[in-house]
């Protein structure tokens, strides 16, 4: 590759990188500015004498800690449900030969194409009939039936594991659940971590679910709590940016520690076959 081309490529990438990062920089720097600097013209590029008051006030106003606790509780249940249920179903689709497993596999794809709006209203009615509106149950119970995306991803991964080991274990009298638990799961830790991470992020970010089912302020998650805060205090940019920073931060941290699991997972679902 010619040197000129390498140089130009780098230049474009650095430029694009700055453009992509800048909104995040602006998020954090606005959060650290007192109001006078937030609304100053021309803009203050680097906060002078950064203040933490936006963070304290934001945490106090929103009740940030309560919402974080609510969110984490939902995330934890969804990660647990998704990993357990999806791996069981994926095992059935990848490692057990039975009539009808292809139909079930196609049902995964079909549910991915189906717009959520089609099932939204009857699902709401089911939960209402069960008396679950306002509780965590509508936001957590469905994950214990597995998610189409997670099952798909785990199935792809299980398919790559050789059958020799499980065949040998079967000859030794090992049951199907034993093979799943002692052979397949230990070999699949990276894929399970990926699925768990995606479930965590999806549930941390979910907005429509809490919007539909949480009607008591004390049970709000961060996503809905933050949205309600915007609609009430739309000009308090310092506090809004501080609260948003705190909501984004865990995702950024998780991503940095588990980059490979994320990228590997996306690649696995994007691949054909």
């Amino acid at each position, binding site marked *: 590759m010619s040197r000129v081309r390498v140089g130009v490529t780098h230049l474009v990438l650095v430029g694009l990188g700055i453009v992509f990062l800048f909104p995040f920089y602006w998020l954090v720097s606005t959060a650290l500015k007192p109001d006078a600097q937030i609304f100053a013209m021309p803009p203050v590029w680097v906060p002078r004498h950064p203040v933490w008051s936006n963070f304290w006030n934001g945490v106090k106003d929103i009740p940030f800690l309560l919402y974080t606790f609510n969110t984490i509780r939902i995330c934890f249940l969804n990660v647990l449900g998704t990993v357990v249920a999806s791996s069981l179903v994926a095992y059935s689709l990848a490692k057990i030969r039975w009539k009808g497993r292809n139909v079930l596999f196609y049902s995964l794809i079909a549910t991915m194409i189906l717009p959520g709006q*089609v099932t939204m209203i009857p699902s709401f009615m089911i939960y209402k009939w069960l008396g679950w509106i306002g509780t965590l149950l509508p936001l957590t119970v469905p994950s214990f039936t597995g998610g189409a995306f997670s099952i798909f991803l785990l199935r792809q991964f299980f398919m790559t594991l050789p059958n020799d080991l499980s065949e040998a274990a079967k000859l030794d009298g090992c049951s199907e659940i034993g093979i799943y638990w002692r052979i397949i799961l230990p070999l699949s830790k990276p894929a399970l971590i990926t699925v768990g991470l995606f479930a965590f992020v999806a549930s941390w970010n979910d907005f429509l679910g809490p919007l*539909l089912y949480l009607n008591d302020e004390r049970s709000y998650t961060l996503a809905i709590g933050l949205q309600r805060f915007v609609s009430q205090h739309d000009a308090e940019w310092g506090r809004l940016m501080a609260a948003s920073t705190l909501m984004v931060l865990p995702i950024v941290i998780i*991503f940095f520690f588990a980059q490979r699991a994320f990228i590997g997972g996306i690649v696995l679902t994007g691949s054909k076959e």
Partner: protein
Amino acid sequence: MEARNLRNGLLFAAPWIVGLVVFYAYPILASLYYSFCSYDGIRPPRWTGLQNYHRMFFEDDLFFKALYNTLYMVVFGVPLSLLCGLGVALLLNQKVRGISLYRTIFYLPSITPVVANSILWLWLLNPDIGLVNVVLHHLGIAKPPAWIADPLWSKPALLLMGLWGVGGGMVIYLAALQNVPVALYEAASLDGAGILQKLRNVTLPMITPVILFNVITGLIGSFQYFTEAYVMTNGGPEDSTTFYALDLFNRAFQDFHMGYASAMAWVLFLIVLLCTILVFKSSLRWVYYGGENR
């Protein structure tokens, strides 16, 4: 043996089968039934035949406005994110240094919470003091657009914001690009192919399956565009960001016209299905399956 496999297969798949019945099969049938009813969610549904559909197609201007707004996002958003996602991936595929750092930078906005992203862009796109307009002003544009406060600019503003999240597709393109066998490029070089010829005749054909994947998921996602509009504009100004899913949500859970909203959901489903089938049909002509991954 076969019977035992069937039993075990069903047992292991039981969670999904239960979910399929409770969260998909029943709701699909129920919403189809509701769509022919007048239903407020409290009193039992009352059969009204095709009335909901008739009203939707002949008496409801807002429905067409929402459909238009949504098609706008699909028609511009999907190709735009295809071009930009692929473009960035091609840049990163040039064996440059620091590829994983760049990948992180470009990917991050696509996994941070949509609510937080929307609030951030509400601030960036503020007509008077937002960073975007301040920069445009610096560049000599005396009257920059009011973005989400202007019905003409609100959808382009959301498209612009959407480009920030282009990294999700980019990561998939990049992985596909890195799987293209080097031997193909070497052979093309021997035949005297230049950069553009290699791109057209080697790179693009080899990653068409992944392009198809991203186009389909992008299509389905764009038709259901919701959270950004709900948080940032709530449909305004002048209904210019009342998208299909937002309109449907409001009718179901603010007006309690659940029957009408169910009919809207079914029309959406049919549109998405039709588009998906068309893209798949066309893909027979432009997707190349025959890579080394088979």
